[in-house]
């Protein structure tokens, strides 16, 4: 059966220890200054006096159901795996145009400074293949991150989703339908950017692609018309040719 991997996070128990970020960085030998996951921090409102509180929010690529990064890819080098739901990158097929990086409203991708292709969370596929949890999930001391297959009713992630209220960090104007759920409530909620496609991509799909179809289509139509004429009135026109030759 197809899997639908997702993460359910109890951000209220996150202590901002950054162990998930460190283990991810070590696991994937990430380049200096770049991270595949993060812990966001809400700015405390001190006007609340003794009720002032803080909140930390672990996150990473949300492996969206409507992945805008995948839509922005000109070739399909980044794609959502049908079997697992993991949004991943075929680095050998990627030409490094950077469209997907701009199209992700969660800033979950960066361009690898050496390989010059995008890099992002892949739920530690190599670890999953060995039957292990993603590094960030495995390492979390407070078990804030829960990872699992939503299509498997026995999984802890599916159980939490069934029994608890959750929120998602949504985007506009396009809803990415993220597969990252936060138990009860979480803060901050307003950090994602607007979903916007790079101009090169909008021009490609909105202008060049229709133009391609029209130009090649018209040309094909003209060829078809000439072919039909040749088949049905071929002899007639060659007679005319001969007449013209004589004249």
């Amino acid at each position, binding site marked *: 059966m197809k899997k639908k991997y997702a993460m359910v996070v109890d951000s209220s128990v996150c202590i901002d220890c950054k162990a998930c970020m460190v283990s991810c960085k070590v696991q994937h030998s990430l380049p200096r200054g770049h991270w595949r996951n993060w812990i966001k921090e809400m700015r405390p409102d001190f006007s609340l006096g003794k009720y002032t509180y803080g909140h930390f929010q672990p996150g990473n690529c949300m492996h969206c159901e409507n992945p805008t990064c995948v839509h922005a*890819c000109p070739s399909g080098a980044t794609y959502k795996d049908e079997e697992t739901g993991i949004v991943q990158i*075929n680095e050998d097929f990627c030409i490094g145009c*950077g469209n997907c990086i701009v199209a992700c409203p969660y800033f979950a991708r960066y*361009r690898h400074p050496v390989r*010059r292709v995008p890099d992002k969370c892949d739920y530690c596929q190599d670890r999953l293949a060995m039957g292990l949890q993603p590094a960030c999930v495995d390492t979390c001391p407070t078990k804030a991150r829960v990872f699992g297959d939503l299509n498997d009713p026995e999984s802890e992630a599916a159980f939490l989703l069934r029994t608890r209220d959750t929120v998602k960090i949504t985007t506009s104007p396009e809803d990415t339908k993220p597969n990252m759920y936060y138990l009860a409530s979480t803060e901050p909620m307003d950090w994602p950017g607007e979903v916007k496609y790079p101009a090169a991509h909008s021009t490609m799909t909105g202008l060049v692609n229709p133009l391609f*179809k029209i130009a090649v289509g018209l040309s094909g139509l003209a*060829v078809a018309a000439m072919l039909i004429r040749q088949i049905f009135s*071929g002899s007639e026109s060659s007679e005319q040719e001969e007449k013209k030759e004589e004249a």
Partner: protein
Amino acid sequence: MQERMIPRHDKGGIFIHWFNAVCWITLTLTGLGLINEHWNPLGGWYPNLMRSLFGSPEMLLTVHMYLGLFWASVMIIYVLVRFRESLAFLKEIFSIRPARDMIWMVKKNIQMTMGEKMLKKLGMTPDIPPQGFYNAGQKLFAQVTVIAALVLIVTGVTMFLSTMVLNNPTPVAWSRTIHYLFAGLALAGLLVHIYMAAISREERPAFKSMLTGTVPESYARHHHELWYQQVKDRI
């Protein structure tokens, strides 16, 4: 009676034409397989077919990239080695005589697709302006191809270098868009060009001349009268 034959293409020209033809068609077929299956102009089946034919998407991309580089190198070497001939070719295809070429374009298009009767119905006389070495349609196609070739080489090399040396991806994204645009314009012209050469009965002697190098005198007089007037006494 054996008709007098007039030389039209030399061996070098014939070689580069067929080299260009094979490469260009292969590059168009592989290139279309690299376009995202979700909005591929041919539909999702085409990129999927091409990618499985070549074993993997990255293999399709590799073949497309290196064939493109090989094609570009040979074309550039050809132009450098035969600089004078290439310059003469460019001068020929870019010397436009607006009035004569426009009339040819309109009339010939109607005549070829809808017939002589339609031409008369639209109130036009059936006489077609005499043409030079290339007719107006061939000139337009040659212009599109030359410009497209230059643009495809520049944008193609940009994309090739992207993951090796380019730190700013924006020119790469635009290269992809522009590469696709010009490949499409060339393909639109190519369909007509291939029809004329391979299928059209009228143009059969022109097709043969791309193999033998010569055209019959009557063909030259009828299809390229201005050129015929220049060369008829020299043979």
